[in-house]
């Protein structure tokens, strides 16, 4: 709790409104849960504006109106823990963590929002969850829930429940919840457990077994002793189940990492300043390059686009690959243009580069070769069969000359030079800056490809 604030606050004798009228049925466990909650807060003297009470849907969600000065957030069904997690995350990481967040949720909400409970436990944020488990949905007429015991008669199990109930505490223990307890609303151990849970710095949860006097009690001849029997039969141990001191709060771990983050390397992200006032290229040029995953198709295209920008051009780059990312084809569609680029689609590319069979299959599946007109050029690796195309087809030993990892970049640089897209100097200088491979060797290979007439005739 924030120092300096506590000292000026008056002593809180109750957190409830004046003359509270508990909106629950006679004998309902919820009334005792809320009374015990109030008593625990009084004992701990929690500053009322440093406590957020987040309530779920269902009877227990009516608790909001009973508390005078606490912040109350009444949420949607099952999501209370998730909203509470957001509050606690922002509070602890962004504002030092002066707020305590308490969630009131029923057995229905706990199952709807089970993963919110699991994740809150994993994160270990400073939230206390009271799961008020009365085995039925009271507000809608006593239907069975996922924690309804076997043989239990409910509105939806009129002949007795035949599905075994889930053990919420075990799930949360397995989710690394550092504080887990189970008790009954009327059990003498409840107040002390509640105090401990609220005072606990981190995620704490208490499953409170309750009697729904309206529905569960009449259909099942239920009373306190029978409730204890049910717990025993299901192996639901009562009391403090987990009290781990070895878990660090999320905010603390986040802040430790934060120091590392500030010391980490800054990603290479230099501003590109166009060197020449007038770009060499006079008309927009569209390029499709396609090959295989692992050939660095998309990153090579990015390097050449960076050089295009440095030479005064506008660019757009669209990458494509199968959803599995690391297999099959990899492709990029590029525009290099002396003017701002509007529509980024490419129907008939000016240049098509294909470095592998995956790439050829990709462009063929998109009917690109046959759509090309006579002004388009298609450069493919010489290992590939010649496709039917309306464009000029050229076959070069890209893979043989540049190798698997550099075939794409080699083919791109080759095409850039051949089509006078930009000056050799700008392309070289940008590659020197951004490419980890040997740029001079790459250019020597490009020159060899061009000068020695390595084009392979079909």
């Amino acid at each position: 709790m924030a120092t300096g604030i506590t000292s000026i606050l008056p002593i809180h004798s109750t957190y409830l409104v004046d003359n509270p009228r508990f909106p629950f049925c006679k004998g309902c466990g919820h009334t005792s849960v809320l009374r015990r909650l109030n008593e625990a807060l009084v004992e701990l003297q929690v500053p009322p504006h440093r406590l957020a009470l987040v309530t779920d849907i269902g009877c227990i969600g009516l608790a909001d109106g009973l508390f005078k000065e606490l912040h109350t957030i009444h949420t949607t069904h099952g999501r209370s823990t998730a909203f509470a997690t957001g509050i606690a995350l922002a509070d602890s990481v962004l504002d030092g963590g002066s707020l305590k967040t308490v969630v009131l949720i029923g057995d229905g909400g706990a199952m709807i929002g089970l993963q919110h409970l699991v994740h809150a436990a994993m994160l270990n944020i400073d939230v206390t969850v009271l799961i008020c488990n009365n085995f039925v949905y009271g507000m809608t007429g006593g239907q069975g829930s996922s924690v309804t015991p076997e043989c239990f008669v409910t509105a939806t199990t009129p002949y007795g429940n035949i599905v075994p109930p889930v053990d919420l505490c075990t799930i949360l223990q397995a989710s690394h919840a550092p504080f887990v307890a189970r008790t009954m609303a009327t059990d003498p151990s409840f107040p002390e457990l509640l105090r401990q849970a609220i005072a606990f710095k981190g995620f704490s949860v208490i499953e409170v077994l309750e009697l729904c006097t309206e529905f569960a009690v009449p259909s099942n001849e239920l009373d306190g002793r029978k409730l204890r029997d049910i717990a025993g039969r299901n192996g639901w141990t009562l009391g403090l189940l987990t009290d781990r001191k070895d878990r660090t709060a999320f905010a603390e771990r986040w802040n430790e990492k934060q120091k590392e983050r500030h010391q980490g390397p800054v990603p290479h992200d230099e501003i590109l300043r166009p060197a020449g006032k007038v770009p060499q290229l006079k008309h927009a040029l569209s390029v499709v390059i396609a090959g295989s995953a692992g050939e660095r198709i998309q990153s090579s295209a990015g390097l050449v686009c960076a050089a295009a920008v440095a030479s005064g051009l506008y660019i757009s780059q669209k990458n494509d690959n199968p959803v599995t990312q690391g297999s099959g084809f990899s492709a990029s569609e590029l525009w290099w243009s002396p003017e701002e680029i509007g529509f980024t689609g490419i129907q008939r590319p000016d240049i098509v580069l294909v470095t592998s069979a995956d790439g050829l299959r990709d462009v063929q599946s998109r009917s690109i070769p046959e759509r090309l007109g006579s002004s388009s050029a298609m450069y493919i690796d010489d290992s590939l069969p010649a496709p039917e195309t309306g464009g000029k087809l050229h076959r070069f030993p890209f893979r043989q000359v540049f190798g698997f990892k550099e075939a794409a970049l080699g083919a791109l640089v080759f095409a850039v030079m051949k089509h006078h897209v930009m000056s050799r100097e700008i392309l070289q200088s940008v590659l020197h800056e951004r490419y980890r491979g040997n740029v001079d060797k790459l250019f020597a290979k490009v020159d060899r490809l061009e000068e020695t007439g390595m084009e392979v005739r079909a």
Partner: protein
Amino acid sequence: MARKAQSHLPQSIRLRSGNQMMAEGALQAGCMFFAGYPITPATGIFKTMIDLLPAKGGIALSAPDEISAIAYCIGASMRGSRSMTATSGPGWALMIESIQYALMTETPLVVSLVQRLGPSTGGATQGAQGDVLLAEFCTSGGYTLPVLCPTNASECYELTILAFTWAELLRMPVILLSDKETGMTIESVDFSSLPRSTAQNRPSNFAFRDLGTHNRTERKGTYYFDALHEIPPFAPVGGDRKVTATGSAHDKQGRLQKNSTETIDVLKHLEQKISWRRDDFVSVVSDLQPSATTLVVSYGVTARAARSAVQQARNAGERISLLVIHSLFPIPVKKLAHALQGVDTVLVAEENMSGLYRSVLERYCKGAKVRGVNKIGAMITPEEILEAVFEEPWQPA
């Protein structure tokens, strides 16, 4: 802001996708909290926030699903920090419950919806503009939610800042409606032309970090207003004023209440606070020609094809106007009426099957013939728009 022009070429360019620019716009807007769940084609926003937000002192983290992601953001916003999440259609479907909660609890929030081809999981890597009405009409009661739709990477940045401003001023969720092409296409972005401003603050007497030292002005409840359109001052959960928030029908204090006059007034207020300001919360690009008889209306990625088509039509001697709408909702009625002057044909170009946005625009285009240019599975091309303009196959010059 005045800048000295060095040359006719942009001077500071970075290669950026629309997704990256949305994340960077959020940082510029003062977003301090991001929770996400990966989904193509929106993952780039999530990843950029993970990479950049912690260094700004904020928190970006991975939620176990989209429902948790948006709920974390709403909780963080209630605590007082600007929050954002991003998703695509299938994740949006899961978030709708909590969007309604943010609307009802008057919680500022920015959600980026990067559209892909639907329905259901549809096509993860195929673009589409099929979520425009799913985004807008996702609330029971059909409340107006602001929807902002960028056409390129720079606008992703600018409109994200605007989305935060609107979310904060209106105390409500604002949707950034992007799409696969806008989000994932990398472009040369001129950083020297981007706005330097941050987003405006939520109307509040209570600063996030300022606990208790303030001049305590009278505040009559979490959702208090006099006139229906007034926006109640924001107080953070954990601040020195009690917050009573609820997603259930409530009075101006936030107390659960059914069907009282005050409760119904609160519901009217949720709509009034945006519809009363509909002429102020507008972002369009009007490219109008005097005596034009045809108006092309478009948005998002298709607006780029529309711009190109209109240029080509003008080159061919056609008198034609273009209205690119960023603020799809609230519908920019005045701007539309202005663009419609003298127009007898309206063409609405959008990448969906039946003309979703057209279906809501039509009622504001009385007197003009409204037609659609529609398509699914691929971007609408300038040629397809030109064919609709001339009603015959387009022969490029």
